[in-house]
């Protein structure tokens, strides 16, 4: 049994877990989300909002870039590239306009951190944009928000209006004679636009397809001008870093992965949600403090950072969730989208559905991804339906291998990741589907309401 609520050790365990949560978590960006008007300028200013702007503007831009670099902030959108270094690549004195483009196209399956952040605290992003634009000497920034999140768009519109009205944006925002414009741009439904060069093509009013690199966006990005593309959480983390200092920032996380971050717990867990703390926490720590898996069930597989990061199992509960730790475990930190699935979940069904997603979202530009994801879907559907044979497992492994590293952009690598990793850990489960046997799992047992009373009448035929 996994439920311990009725035994004598429960209250002590509760106390331990509460103590652990208070010690391990460290809300920064999420610190005032529980205030009823947390998204407003007033609320943000009550919590040191925009206090980092004068400090940053007083610094020479090059010094500011060096400072962010020394602090060790790394990109929170998946790849973990040092943010300061990205800024440093922007050529200076080139006479061209420079642009900052914030990637708010959060669409990676499982990833759900930037959307709640922008809903509850959009001004943290705007303050970060002001500081970043000072650093890279940009007078025009863009927020590329995926279109399918109108509540967030509404709050961004209002936050930008407030920031203009308060003089943080617009004329002389970055000092005398230094204006800053900020444009909120809603996308129109395309996962590929989260890839930074596809995003730039989309922002230029084209089909969102990735560009050949080099030239990199730092040299020829938006309108062929030097451009920094950063994730929402990366930029939103800058104000706190500047205000409290790099030593404070480095007091969290590890030498190579310093700072705080948002972990998103989802799936068959007792308490899904956002958990902000230092990099390097483990899934075990996060589950223990939050109540573990749903009562009576155990962890089967999970993603550390969205479906594009190779899946892990309960063997990996103690892997530090930082760039190095997850990399050593054979996956990637990605977006810290911790999707947890319990033993009721069919891994073949999960991987098939992810693969259908990649096939749908493949932009069609390169052959390995366009054709490979299409054929993977056909084969996986056959496997799931019991119509496949052992040789088909070799075939999906082979196709995945021919997509991985051989596609134009990382979408192809992402498509291969769930297949290769699930075959590594759950090959027997694939084999159990073959030769007419079909899926041995009951999807009704995986639903959120499966263990609730009076759910017997709910039928699922997935």
């Amino acid at each position, binding site marked *: 049994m*996994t439920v311990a609520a009725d035994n004598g050790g429960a209250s002590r365990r509760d106390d331990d877990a*509460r103590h652990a949560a208070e010690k391990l978590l460290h809300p920064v960006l999420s610190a005032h*989300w529980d205030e009823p008007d947390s998204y407003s300028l007033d609320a943000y200013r009550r919590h040191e909002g925009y206090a980092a702007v004068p400090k940053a503007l007083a610094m020479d831009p090059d010094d500011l870039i060096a400072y962010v670099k020394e602090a060790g902030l790394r990109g929170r959108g998946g790849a973990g590239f040092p943010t300061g270094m990205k800024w440093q690549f922007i050529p200076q004195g080139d006479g061209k306009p420079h642009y900052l483009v914030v990637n708010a196209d959060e669409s990676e399956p499982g990833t759900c951190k930037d959307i709640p952040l922008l809903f509850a605290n959009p001004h943290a992003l705007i303050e970060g944009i002001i500081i970043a634009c000072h650093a890279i000497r940009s007078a025009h920034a863009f927020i590329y928000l995926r279109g399918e999140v109108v509540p967030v768009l509404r709050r961004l519109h209002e936050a930008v209006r407030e920031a203009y009205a308060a003089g943080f944006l617009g004329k002389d925002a970055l000092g005398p004679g230094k204006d800053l414009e900020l444009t909120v741009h809603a996308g129109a439904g395309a996962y590929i636009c989260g890839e930074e060069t596809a995003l730039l093509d989309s922002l230029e009013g084209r089909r969102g397809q990735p560009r050949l690199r080099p030239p990199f966006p730092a040299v020829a990005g938006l309108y062929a001008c030097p451009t920094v593309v950063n994730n929402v959480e990366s930029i939103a983390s800058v104000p706190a870093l500047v205000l409290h200092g790099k030593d404070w920032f480095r007091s969290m996380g590890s030498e190579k992965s310093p700072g705080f971050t948002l972990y998103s717990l989802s799936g068959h867990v007792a308490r899904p949600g956002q958990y902000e703390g230092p990099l390097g926490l483990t899934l075990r720590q996060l*589950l*223990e403090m939050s109540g573990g898996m749903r009562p009576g069930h155990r962890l089967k597989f999970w993603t550390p950072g969205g479906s594009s990061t190779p899946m892990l199992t309960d063997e990996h509960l103690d892997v530090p969730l930082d760039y190095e730790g997850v990399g050593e475990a054979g996956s990637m930190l990605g977006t810290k989208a911790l999707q947890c*699935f319990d033993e009721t979940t069919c891994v073949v069904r999960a991987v098939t559905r992810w693969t259908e997603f990649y096939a749908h979202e493949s932009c069609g530009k390169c052959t390995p991804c366009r054709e490979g994801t299409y054929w993977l879907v056909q084969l996986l559907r056959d496997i799931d339906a019991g119509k496949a044979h052992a040789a088909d497992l070799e075939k999906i492994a082979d196709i995945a291998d021919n997509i991985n590293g051989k596609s134009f952009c990382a979408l192809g690598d992402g498509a291969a990741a769930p297949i290769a990793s699930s075959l590594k850990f759950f090959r027997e489960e694939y084999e159990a589907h073959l030769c007419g046997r079909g899926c041995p799992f009951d999807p009704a047992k995986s639903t959120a309401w499966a263990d609730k009373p009076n759910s017997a009448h709910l039928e699922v035929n997935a």
Partner: protein
Amino acid sequence: MSGQPTEAVDIGIPQMPAPDYPAEVRERLERDAREIIGRYPDSRSALLPLLHLVQAEEGYVTATGQRFCAEMLDLSTAEVNGVATFYTMYRRKPSGDYQVGVCTNTLCAVMGGDAIHERLRDHLGVGDGETTPDGKVTLEHVECNAACDFAPVVMVNWEFFDNQTPESACALVDDLRAGRQVAPTRGAPLCTFQETARILAGFPDERRDAVDASGSAGPASLAGLRLAKGETPPGPGVVSPRSAAADEEGE
């Protein structure tokens, strides 16, 4: 058959050039379009917002709407069509006032999204991508919408309806079809698909209190914060997953 008018055979190619908007509509849309174009250093960047704008006008992206975008941005209609057909949010045929999108990406599907989608198909008597005969509801499956901690999720006109069940989703579409006011768990009271498209074009929601509706953050968004502040007990007392597995399997 000389002298007889030849009957046109419809092979699905739209009539070219597409008809223009009526003058007063065109004038109004041009004003909006110029405002949008003014936000960008290069006019072509306005194409995605302009496509949202023409969708707000007619409920889907018509040939007339594409012609308008092309003329405003000095593009060919083929270039506009190439972009309009790339993105899933642009509709290519008339649809309902309320787009009900059930997330069936893996996590939501497993948590119940597949069951919800199936129940709604039965309940509404329509297939995926189809509209109810009263023109109210278009049912669709959607991809991950960045709300996995609220799974299973249903989006109506791109507002969040979190933690849904087949029963709650059926009640939701019944309310929509009956014209009852519906409020999402996160977002503002619903407006129509066309009104939503105008917000997407970059024109802020003008309804009072729309920004404030539904509070600062959903409950799941606050889970970690409440734990860190010691405001909530740490869950229903479940032992760690590894020892649970060991207990069960006798390892």
